[in-house]
């Protein structure tokens, strides 16, 4: 009998009406450098298992890094004990939406396993990035890093599923700093590239040294860029920036656990309450957004979620209207759905699976429109590239975003770099102000390793694709202060 079956049997014998087990090992590698030296190289392996059960209508979970027969039995029984202890506080039993038993193996398609690449190649790339930036007159510092994750997990459940998955994710990063000693000021510019679900080919294909040199030029140029005049302005948001606005203002409000109050104590609730489903006009007719865990290269992509549900693509916003939530098996019934949309995830063998954001993408415009066309069609606006500061309230109404690079657009042309820009808006007002989205040729996928939610806090890796888009009449702030 496999250890997975041992866990399921032990849980059932102890009184569980449902149980699943994830036996997983995570391999990570991180390299960090600054200027001409490599600061650290770290390898890590983390192996263990978690057993999740429903007993007396209540969830229980226990986990251990010691993967042995006896420990599996102990932990499975402990999960049932926790469920039963807490069942006395329960009001309604947990109900799971059905799923067919799955027997499958799935792996992220990669061309080159990053753990097979020599450290020499990786350190040479990082030091090359730093050297390219440092060669720009006026650049003072450059830090760079790369991070690789391989998540290998085996899921089994009392519904009869046995699923093995191997997921790869990698993250590049650098930041250039320019000091103006006379003014006592400094400016930074980080990479505009984002993490992906990919192998080392991502690091081989991207023009890192060219981007680092450009970043150096940009950081130096920021010193003399005029400070923005605050007020109501039109914005053109580049996809290297817009992905994060989508994450915060579309991705999170359409999480069903938030909408019904499960995150009320931590991440917050949502202004997209259940009564608005299918009714609420979220944005302009141009705005269509889908949740999916199926697009190659995107960070949340996998074959099956951590409920054992096959992953899918489902609409969240359709031509401006709010039409869908992200759900898991224990949530689907709350909105009358007979199936989960497959968005359950746990970030470790030691953490419990719950609803996490899939890749949420803003669909590109249907009519041909390049970024150059959009700029040419714009009289007076600010073009923002790269992600900077981000903050949004606990119901996802009031947000404020900064960026990496800001350009003034006047009479159809980019006229100059400006600085100290942030914009603040109310989510539905902002998406109603969207009056142009570029076509598929400008589509780009950004993302993050560190989408946070839950208690204890868990990190979710997620991507967001979009094309450049224009927003009319947004409140722009100047972030320069003296204290």
């Amino acid at each position, binding site marked *: 009998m496999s250890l997975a079956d041992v866990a399921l049997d032990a849980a059932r014998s102890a009184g569980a009406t449902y149980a699943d087990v994830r036996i997983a090992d995570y391999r990570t590698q991180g390299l960090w450098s600054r200027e001409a030296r490599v600061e650290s190289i770290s390898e890590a392996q983390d192996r263990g298992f978690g057993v999740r059960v429903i007993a007396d209508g209540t969830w229980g979970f226990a986990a251990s890094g010691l993967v042995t027969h006896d420990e599996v039995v102990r932990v499975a029984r402990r999960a049932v004990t926790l469920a039963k202890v807490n069942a006395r506080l329960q009001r309604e039993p947990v109900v799971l939406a059905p799923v067919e038993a799955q027997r499958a193996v799935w792996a992220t398609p990669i061309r080159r396993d990053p753990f097979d690449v020599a450290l020499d190649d990786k350190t040479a790339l990082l030091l090359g990035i730093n050297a390219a930036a440092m060669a720009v007159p006026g650049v003072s510092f450059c830090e760079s890093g790369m991070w690789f994750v391989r998540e290998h997990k085996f899921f089994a459940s009392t519904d009869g599923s046995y699923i093995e998955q191997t997921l790869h994710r990698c993250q590049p990063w650098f930041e250039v700093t320019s000091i103006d000693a006379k003014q006592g000021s400094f400016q930074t510019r980080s990479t505009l590239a984002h993490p992906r679900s990919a192998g080392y080919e991502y690091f081989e294909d991207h023009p890192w040294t060219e981007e680092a040199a450009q970043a150096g030029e940009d950081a130096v140029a920021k010193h003399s860029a005029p400070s923005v005049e605050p007020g109501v302005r039109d914005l053109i948001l580049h996809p290297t920036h817009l992905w994060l606005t989508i994450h915060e203002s579309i991705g999170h409000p359409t999480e069903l656990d938030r909408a019904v109050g499960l995150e009320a104590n931590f991440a917050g609730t949502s202004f997209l309450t259940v009564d608005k489903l299918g009714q609420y006009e979220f944005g302009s007719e141009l705005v269509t957004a889908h949740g999916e865990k199926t697009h190659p290269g995107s960070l949340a992509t996998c074959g099956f979620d951590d409920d054992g549900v096959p992953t899918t693509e489902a609409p969240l916003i359709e031509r401006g209207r709010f039409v869908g939530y992200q759900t898991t098996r224990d949530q689907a019934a709350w909105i009358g759905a007979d199936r989960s949309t497959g968005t359950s995830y746990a970030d470790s063998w030691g953490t419990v699976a719950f609803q996490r954001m899939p890749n949420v993408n803003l669909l590109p415009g249907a009519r041909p429109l390049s970024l150059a066309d959009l700029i040419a069609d714009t009289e007076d606006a600010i073009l923002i590239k790269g992600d900077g500061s981000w903050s949004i309230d606990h119901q996802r109404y009031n947000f404020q975003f900064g960026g990496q690079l800001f350009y003034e657009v006047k009479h159809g042309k980019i006229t100059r770099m400006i600085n*100290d820009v942030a914009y603040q808006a109310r989510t539905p007002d902002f998406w109603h102000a969207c009056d142009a989205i570029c076509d598929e040729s400008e589509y780009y996928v950004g993302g993050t390793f560190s989408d946070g939610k839950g*208690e204890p806090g868990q990190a979710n890796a997620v991507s967001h694709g979009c094309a450049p888009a224009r927003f009319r009449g947004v409140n722009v702030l100047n972030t320069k202060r003296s204290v």
Partner: protein
Amino acid sequence: MLSEDEARRLTAQIIKLSKADEVEVSVGSARTTNLRFARNAPTTSGETDRVSITVTSRFGQRVGDATTNQRDAASLELAVRAAEEVARRAPENPEVMPMLSAQAYVAVPGAFDAATAEGGAEALADGVAVALDTARAAGLIAAGYVEVFESAVSLANSAGLFGYHRSTGSTLTETFRTPDGAGSGWGSSAAVRIADLDFVGVAAAASRKAAASQQTRPLAPGSYVAILEPAVVADLVGLFTRRLDGRAADEGRSYFARPGGGTRIGEALFGADITLRSDPHDPIVPGAPWGSEGLPQTAIDWVRDGKLTNLRYGRYWAAKQGVPPVPRPSNLLMAGGQGTTADLIARTERGVLITSVWYIRPLDPQTLLYTGLTRDGVFWIEDGKVTHAVNNFRWNDSPIAVLKNVTAMSAPVHTLSRDLGASDMAVPALQVSAFELSSVSDAV
């Protein structure tokens, strides 16, 4: 959780396996038990046992590290060989320092409570029952999270260093909302001993704030006199202290850099009543005996009587600058005044009471300007009394400005910072002459 004897045996076993010039082993083991609830019922619960063993190998100026969570002999051997392989292939780093020899680490017995370590899921369920009963009785909807942990950390190296420290801790947060979503209140508690976790007080605070916040009157954005409850102060002061990095200041990329070169150490940044310090022996918020790079934690002032007195320095940069190394602190203690938040409210003619803040992100590292939001309880104060609830706000302000604007302080209390999630601080509530509320948030 590893005992000191087990930690000694394990680290010695790993050091014996090493073929490197020097080797260091860091071992952590912990059991965490938690219970989460929402909609007046439990949602998830969990108990996780974790071990983490990090081996750092050094050949000359080349260093590498490898981490495993497995304690069997084969896994330990693999981790040691992996760290050595990384170190051999790492480029030489001129900033690598020889490993520390034996240090005199202070013992912090007050950081551990045996009863807390032995407590379990039943104690958490009993505490949550208090929250659920309180919420139901008041016609409110409760959500929250309670966690208890026991932890042991150990540090050893081939130069003779050894340290062992065990601790326990517990945290509780609760949010109560009115069924119509018009009111919301939050409360929190943190303690070394679960017996000190204030289940009754937190439920009462969340209940009171939820009920009081449901009929808000609009208040326009602007600069207001404000009373900041300790949870707010912990977030703001926590951000300030995280930036106290000596090297960044020396390099000119920090608020603490002096224009033209050097740091602002010695400069009066705030009024004479502002003092921030760390002390691992603090009886309420005990710290760990060592910090980054294995440096011993000692009592240290960061700001004394308004003047910046210290910055953190790693061992290499400290040696280069000719200053003592200073590790990242394991707690933060802000001096205060007398009384409670209620006493500050009674002394306020007109102003805003902010009970918690959320989603804080940097806007300008040069001035430590941050943005964030108020959450779960904002009230108007008139003639020393809270008169009504007001809408939530986005704020754009700097902890530097906040500390410059302090006009009165309560006595400090052990506080859980909501946004940073840190429970290692004791801070007062503050009355400040100006806090910048920049736009209205519709969120409740």
